[in-house]
């Protein structure tokens, strides 16, 4: 190849690289400015909302959609927040817990589940939902890097932080769904006829569940349980783990095993998988894992009772 062509190739790539990096940074800073003012919506608003109130609340619920839809924190404390979100497992809530203030006394309710705890394949992928803060928060960056969930390219192209969340951010910036000041993170499910029909179809087509035989705790899960215990002990926090109800859980060996592990680790753990067993109504459910508003209210009452009786003692009341 002659020098002229070589120069052309180098020049083109350098140009592409420079212009791309420049546009990338502009896009990143514009999106930072916009997203910092967004406090509604699941993609980033709820996270911003949490970061804003995390130092003041005294009771916080973490976990997946089974925490988000199943527990109304206001029924437990007026100064509370439900940070449960769809698809979150343990890496995401554990990272957020590590962002909590050191001195303030806080009670944390963290929903976990046996599927992820004993999954061979869980890699902490849910932490990627914190990508929008990767280039802006050291704790978050360290956790993402530690799990190997970082995208090498993100060190150069910062706009990757906003992958898949741009529309949500813009929508909530221009037209917030709700007034975040009156939102406490809990999203009750009002089940409509179609959803009810789908659920009935699922139940009628149900095939018997295959129980997991290999019950070794996932390494990442295990390490987060230890880290959370240590963090909470050192930072004036009380952490309670729980499993959320299931419509009909036929496998029990995983629950027993998890209870045993939690006991060994001296962690407070409520296995509430069968909470509705013996008193189960279709109206309590949206599907096999998520409660309707009615079911969630009943469930929250029982959590409150447990917390009051077993953890807080009679002398303690939430604000």
């Amino acid at each position, binding site marked *: 190849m002659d020098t002229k062509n070589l120069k*052309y190739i180098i020049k*083109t790539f350098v*140009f592409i690289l420079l*212009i*791309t990096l420049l546009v990338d940074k502009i*896009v990143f800073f514009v999106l930072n400015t916009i997203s910092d003012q967004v406090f509604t919506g*699941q993609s980033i608003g709820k996270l911003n909302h949490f970061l804003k109130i995390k130092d003041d609340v005294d009771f916080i619920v973490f976990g997946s959609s089974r925490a988000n839809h199943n527990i109304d924190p206001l029924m437990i404390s007026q100064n509370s927040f439900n940070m449960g979100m769809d698809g979150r497992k343990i890496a995401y809530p554990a990272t957020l817990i590590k962002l909590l203030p050191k001195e303030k006394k806080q009670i944390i309710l963290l929903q976990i589940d046996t599927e992820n705890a004993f999954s061979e394949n869980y890699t902490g992928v849910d932490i990627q939902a914190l990508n929008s803060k990767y280039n802006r928060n050291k704790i978050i960056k360290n956790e993402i890097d530690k799990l190997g969930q970082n995208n090498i390219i993100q060190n150069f192209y910062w*706009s990757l932080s906003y992958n898949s969340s741009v529309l949500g951010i813009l929508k909530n910036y221009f037209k917030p769904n709700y007034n975040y000041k009156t939102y406490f993170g809990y999203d009750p499910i009002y089940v409509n006829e179609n959803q009810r029909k*789908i659920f009935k179809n699922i139940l009628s*087509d149900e095939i018997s569940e295959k129980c997991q035989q290999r019950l070794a705790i996932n390494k990442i899960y295990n390490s987060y349980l230890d880290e959370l215990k240590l963090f909470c002990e050192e930072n004036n926090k009380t952490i309670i783990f729980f499993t959320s109800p299931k419509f009909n859980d036929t496998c029990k060996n995983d629950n027993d095993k998890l209870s045993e592990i939690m006991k060994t680790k001296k962690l407070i753990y409520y296995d509430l998988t069968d909470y509705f067993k013996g008193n189960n109504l279709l109206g309590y459910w949206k599907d096999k894992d998520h409660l309707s508003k009615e079911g969630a209210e009943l469930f929250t009452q029982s959590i409150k009772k447990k917390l009051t009786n077993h953890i807080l003692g009679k002398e303690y009341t939430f604000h």
Partner: protein
Amino acid sequence: MLFNSFEFLVFFTIIFMLYWLLNNNLSKQNILLLISSYIFYAWWDWRFLSLIILSSFIDFKAGSEIFKSNTVKKRKNWLLVSLIANLGLLSIFKYYNFFAESFTDLMTKFGWHPNDLTLNIILPVGISFYTFQTLSYTIDIYRKQLQPTKNIISFFTYIAFFPQLVAGPIERATNLLPQIEKKRIFKKEWFNEGVIQILVGLFRKIVIADSLGIYVDTIYGDIGIYNSTSIILATFLYAFQIYYDFAGYSDIAIGTAKLLGFKFNQNFNLPYFSKSLTEFWRKWHMSLSFWLRDYLYISLGGNRKGIKITYRNLMLTMLLGGLWHGANWTFIIWGGIHGTVLSLEKYFKSTPYAHKLNGFGFLGYPITFTIVLFSWIFFRAQSLNSATIAIKKIIQFDFSMPFIGDINSVINAILVLSMGILFDLYIFNKKIDLENFGAKFSITKIAIISSVIIILINLFYSTSNNFIYFQF
């Protein structure tokens, strides 16, 4: 190694630099291409490299023997060696279990319960593609349309050339082999076109196709529980998922080859802008449809042996084309639908009514799209049973609200799909050929367009799945 992976970026950057450094030595350059192609393939599973090497050996030998033979019988025999070896390997690895299962099912219906005949066989990635490619070489020599190469490295490179090895386009020896044997010259136009086409391909694949795949996989993963609207919507989105997935792959393959100084044939040309299924097949996976036409349909007699034989040939070609995609009855039915409609179109064209409907030609677009959409149900469904459930569910006409799931991902998918369709409409209206798009652009223009595409990819890319056509 996937085109949309970081490994490929590093791999290709190294190969690209070494390749042009060796520009003064053609044989070294070809050896580099061959070794890199084998590394590219071995990244997936090195054991199956032996199959490619075996196929290449057999066809190199068969090609030269066909050319040397002076009797028709000898020529035929060597062609048979090539056909049996290649189709034999393909049959074992791709179709053995399918035929064994179908045989067992059939016997069970007659009351006989044979033992399980299936074997634990892995389907080697790309086997359908390179088998067709290597067959075109021996058939073309047999037909005296091509002279065999004497250079074994060139031939092996032709079979294994990494941009098109695992999912096409199926390049004919008549097009690619002479390019391998000739010194490549760096052309700025091709470089520009290549860069743009790779980026457009990446956008089509990891932004559009993968975003659409989330909804499609949800619905088709458990088709029995959703209403008519959800299934129609999922099928509609699948039509675009598969198009952008495969067209995207082809764009990256063609673009990558261009950066190395090779020109592949076009593989997709806005197929959904077709007024008939015949036109659709001139624009969809063109390298396969032209292969089937030239080596199967014409070999069967094409349209030279009367109208009935023509219909039979069309039907057989499409049924086998369906089977080529996968060892499943769903693909055969998919091919059958296309074969039937193509035959009907042929019949209709031969009637006196055809010209009377000339003014309604525009109706051909929605009609063709609907037929293609219907056939995709079979293509996407995991089994014949799932496809039947999907159709039954659709004809229940339960047009209540579709299942949405994660609203953000659905909105994202619709937005990126709109971008893709608008881009396609733009190039369709302006009669722009994507293959030549960017040839005359200045460096600044290339850089600006590239950065816009890269930022869009950063902001909207979805979790990368394997390319759909890898399974074929």
